């Protein structure tokens, strides 16, 4: 097995965050990532689409983080954006939104599921997430920027979600949720932090490389793709 490729699947650029997309991409490349996803919140989308440049070994994926309180409107937004983005993230934070996101197989990741006094997941939602292939997003920014009681809360929520995810085999995605370049951390440091916070080493590596790769290959079908399970292969492609 070669060295795994690492991806950061939730980065916010101007006007949502502080830095422009090329700056974040340059920094992420310097830190050793193989790709990032620009996922601005849906209420702060840029006026014009970024020109996404991809150099050798580094790719910038199109993404979006949907913010919507109303479940039926959320499903509408998912339908609207699904075709145009590589990675579709839902910004959770209430019982109805979490449920709507985890029961929709067109969603890729649910970020920030925690609300009030709950970690945001329970056995019903975890089962739904596993069935629909929705990953749970673990975000670094709140962990870094809080201290004391707030960080303790975040860590215990993380632990609770982690246990549910292990039991029901829900996939996890580890991302920075960076609002500026200063929220980005290099892959090795993210791994170290995740391990200190209770993840196993292979879980953390999966959450930064294998799961993101799966999401991209699912949303970018090959040229002969017809529908799930049906694909036209070129001659010589059979074996």
């Amino acid at each position, binding site marked *: 097995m070669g060295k795994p490729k690492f991806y950061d699947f939730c980065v916010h650029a101007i006007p949502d965050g502080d*830095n422009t997309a090329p*700056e974040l991409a340059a920094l992420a490349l310097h830190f050793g990532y193989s790709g990032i996803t620009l996922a601005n919140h849906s209420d702060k989308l840029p006026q014009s689409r970024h020109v996404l440049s991809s150099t050798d070994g580094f790719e910038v994926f199109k993404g979006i983080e949907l913010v919507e309180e109303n479940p039926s409107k959320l499903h509408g937004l998912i339908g609207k954006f699904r075709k145009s983005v590589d990675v579709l993230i839902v910004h959770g934070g209430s019982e109805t939104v979490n449920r709507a996101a985890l029961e929709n197989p067109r969603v890729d990741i649910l970020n920030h599921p925690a609300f009030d006094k709950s970690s945001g997941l329970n056995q019903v939602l975890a089962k739904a997430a596993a069935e629909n292939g929705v990953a749970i997003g673990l975000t670094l920014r709140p962990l870094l920027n809080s201290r004391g009681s707030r960080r303790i809360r975040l860590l215990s929520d993380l632990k609770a979600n982690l246990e549910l995810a292990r039991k029901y085999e829900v996939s996890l995605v580890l991302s920075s949720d960076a609002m500026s*370049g*200063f929220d980005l951390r290099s892959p090795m440091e993210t791994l170290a*932090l995740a391990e*200190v916070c209770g993840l196993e080493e292979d879980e953390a590596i999966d959450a930064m490389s294998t799961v993101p790769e799966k999401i991209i290959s699912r949303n970018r079908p090959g040229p002969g793709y017809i529908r799930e399970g049906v694909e036209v292969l070129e001659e010589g492609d059979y074996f």
Partner: protein
Amino acid sequence: MKRLLPSLRAKKRYLAFELISEGPASRSDLVKEVMSSASSLLGDVIASECDIKVLGFEDWKGIIQCSHTKVKETRASLAALTRINGKRATLHILGTSGTVKRVTEKFLQNLKVFEPKVETKSRTTEE
């Protein structure tokens, strides 16, 4: 006092790092923030086992020493550093090694070529 025998001394790892920051930072500011972030993330007991020391820091790069069994914890606590002097900052670890000489040769000498480009870029945009 007589120095400990080499075989009795604690084994160490040396981490080469670069600092990306909004404002200027002195060595003492860095030491203060590294220690407080380690004790806040790991707790005082584990932070003491890590044996973190900032050996040198100038020109936005330097070397940090830690116990060889606690590299992961040290990395995590350095990643948890977010501010120095109230200015936003990121500590990026370039690599680790068992000797100061090796870590300097391997990670800090070649750094001059590539590192300033990205660093100044992200710094100037923040100002």
